[in-house]
């Protein structure tokens, strides 16, 4: 690394992109992540040496790349990824967090978990095999979880002689299928790569002069990290009410929380939901001094012009742009527990900062995540199954449809006997 690069590397004002990769060992997912880490210098020599030592003992050529992302004992024994692993690397332009998830159907819940925080998804397709059932599954989950950018990385191009024809055929096949996904939005980009040889990952290589688009890393560096930030989307779930009651702060009452979407300014007219109380923003308090405005995803403290009865679980929004307040809704749910979800059962729902008792009133349908067919009124949802479920809550919550707002449309389902997280839900209406 030269002095110029070093200087940029020390810069602290780059952006952060979270992305997810879904795929199995056969797709070369671990090799791709290893390649990204090695070529962007996200791996230290001692870690590289350790992986190379293992490769010498038992691996095939290039196996050290996959070994870099080796996980827990149980996973090493089985040679598969089970749980979500988080990996980190940086380039002079950006910092990245990868949620590395398994690709097999029996780990759908782990894929859903990894996708929940991602802003971009890499779907790996083996160029020799084309669009498989699992590619469709990964695409469906990415869209269901509302990931705005999808990169279809057509891998192992080295094994098909870097053929443009193969690439075009897979691209067309995927685009046809994707168009039929009844979910709007989402940008799709296709990139031909060889994770093993490195072509079009970080370096362009010389094998695919016919491809003029961005390399995978260029795409990761250029994708916008946030959508448009607007005042109308302002959503502020109250996490904690600060009342220090010290001598200097005797009357201080601050509402602490994280701006989940949108933007707020001092003086703005606000409404508190579900109560409907109104006031204006008096101050936006922070350790670094009061702010005039704040936006997603900042964690701030708001004070209001009027003294109001507000507690954890309430949501502060702009008076002129309010979410729905619902006691009943339908949601797409992904089930994560060995005990199936059934109509009539009661659970707890954690939605933003409120935890509410809820009952499943009906199972509308189940999605066959391989064919994407919908099976009406199934008796139950088993682990890793996804379907449309009707909920009725004990108390109303302020929420938006998930496809419009990921933060206020999402919830987790908790079993109040075992305390386990048993499912994830996305409000549809």
């Amino acid at each position: 690394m030269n002095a110029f690069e070093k200087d940029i590397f020390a810069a602290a004002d780059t952006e952060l992109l979270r992305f997810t990769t879904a795929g199995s060992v056969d797709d070369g997912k671990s090799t791709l992540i290893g390649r990204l880490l090695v070529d962007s210098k996200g791996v230290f020599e001692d870690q590289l040496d350790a992986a190379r030592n293992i490769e010498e003992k038992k691996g095939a050529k290039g196996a050290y790349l996959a070994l870099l992302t080796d996980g827990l004992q149980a996973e090493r024994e089985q040679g598969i990824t089970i749980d979500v692993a988080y990996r980190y690397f940086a380039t002079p332009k950006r910092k990245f967090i990868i949620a590395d998830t398994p690709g097999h159907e029996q780990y759908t819940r782990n894929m859903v978990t990894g996708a929940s925080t991602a802003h971009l998804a890499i779907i790996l397709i083996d160029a020799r095999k084309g669009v498989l059932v699992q590619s469709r599954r990964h695409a469906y989950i990415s869209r269901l979880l509302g990931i705005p950018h999808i990169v279809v990385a057509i891998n192992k191009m080295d094994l098909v002689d870097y053929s443009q024809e193969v690439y075009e055929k897979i691209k067309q096949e995927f685009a046809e299928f994707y168009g039929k996904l009844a979910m709007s939005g989402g940008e799709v980009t296709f990139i031909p790569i060889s994770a093993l040889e490195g072509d079009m990952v970080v370096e362009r290589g010389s094998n695919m002069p016919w491809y003029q688009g961005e390399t995978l890393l260029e795409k990761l560096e250029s994708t916008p990290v946030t959508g448009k930030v607007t005042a109308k989307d302002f959503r502020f779930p109250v996490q904690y009410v600060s009342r220090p009651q010290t001598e200097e702060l005797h009357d201080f009452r601050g509402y602490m929380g994280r701006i989940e979407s949108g933007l707020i300014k001092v003086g703005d007219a606000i409404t508190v939901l579900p109560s409907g109380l109104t006031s204006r923003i008096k101050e936006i308090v922070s350790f670094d001094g009061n702010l005039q405005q704040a936006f997603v995803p900042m964690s701030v403290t708001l004070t209001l012009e009027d003294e109001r009865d507000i507690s954890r679980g309430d949501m502060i929004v702009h008076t002129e742009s309010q979410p729905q307040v619902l006691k009943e809704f339908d949601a797409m749910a992904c089930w994560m527990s060995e005990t199936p979800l059934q109509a009539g059962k009661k659970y707890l729902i954690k939605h933003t900062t409120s935890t509410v008792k809820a009952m499943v009133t009906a199972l509308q349908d189940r999605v066959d995540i391989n064919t994407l067919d919908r099976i009406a009124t199934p008796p139950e949802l088993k682990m890793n199954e996804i379907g449309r479920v009707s909920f009725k809550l004990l108390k109303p919550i302020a929420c938006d449809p998930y496809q419009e707002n990921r933060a206020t449309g999402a919830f987790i389902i908790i079993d109040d006997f075992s305390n386990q997280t048993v499912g994830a839900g996305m409000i549809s209406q």
Partner: protein
Amino acid sequence: MSNTLTHLKTLEAESIHIMREVVAEFRNPVMLYSIGKDSSVMLHLARKAFFPGPLPFSLLHVDTGYKFHEMITFRDWYAKEIGAKLIVHRNEEAIAAGAHPLKLGVARCCGALKTKALLDALAAGGFDAAMGGARRDEERSRAKERIFSFRDEFGQWDPKNQRPELWDLYNCRIHEGESIRVFPISNWTEMDVWQYIKLENIPIVPLYYAKERKMVKRGSMLIPADDAGNLKPGEVPEMVMCRFRTLGCSPCTGAVHSSATTIEEIVAEAATATRSERETRIIDHGSNTMEDKKKEGYF
């Protein structure tokens, strides 16, 4: 004004959100404070999270008796400076019995002075949530660690029995006796930590800065030689210009050759480092891996 945050401000906002969830949802949380750079960043974030109020929890330091004296001096000064309540816990029984890595072996020494001491301290305080400054980029078993990590009534970690963690919705529910370890800076890397220390001017223990120190070379490691008890027969100390990338117990923490005497120089060094920071931690090498230790209740 651009409506995009830098990566450091994004990470800061996430960590603050996590700590506020802890304080809002748990009955009796505590923050583990190890005096190192990661702890220093976590503590700084906690001050931001609850500003203008005071910290709504105590700091807990598990002292093995082998921490560098510079660390203890710094700890006491800084806790007082920011008005934090500090609890120090030591496994006095094991310390009195002369537990030392050269005598017991690293695994047993850590087990007594760190793991047991931590579990005892958490039980004594009746804490239901303990925040710690571990990062996922540190070690491979940590890469799969949750931000809210469930521990059974023995304080142990079962990698197969962890709760799915989606969006920023953390399940904080536990039964009596169970607890949660919370890692608010899970998503920070070593580089992020150093850049943030520089950006925010966070005070750190002077051991992180390079100076001439009395050290002994053991294999590829530089081990502090201030304490004669750290020496093996035949080892001869020498003065070396060096600094510490991570801080643990003095017999088990290696230094690196360095001339970085300012935070700017440390950030530059971190940016071009070719070896991982855990390489200087003896506890990470050997048959008892971090995964094994975490299962037993280690941090």
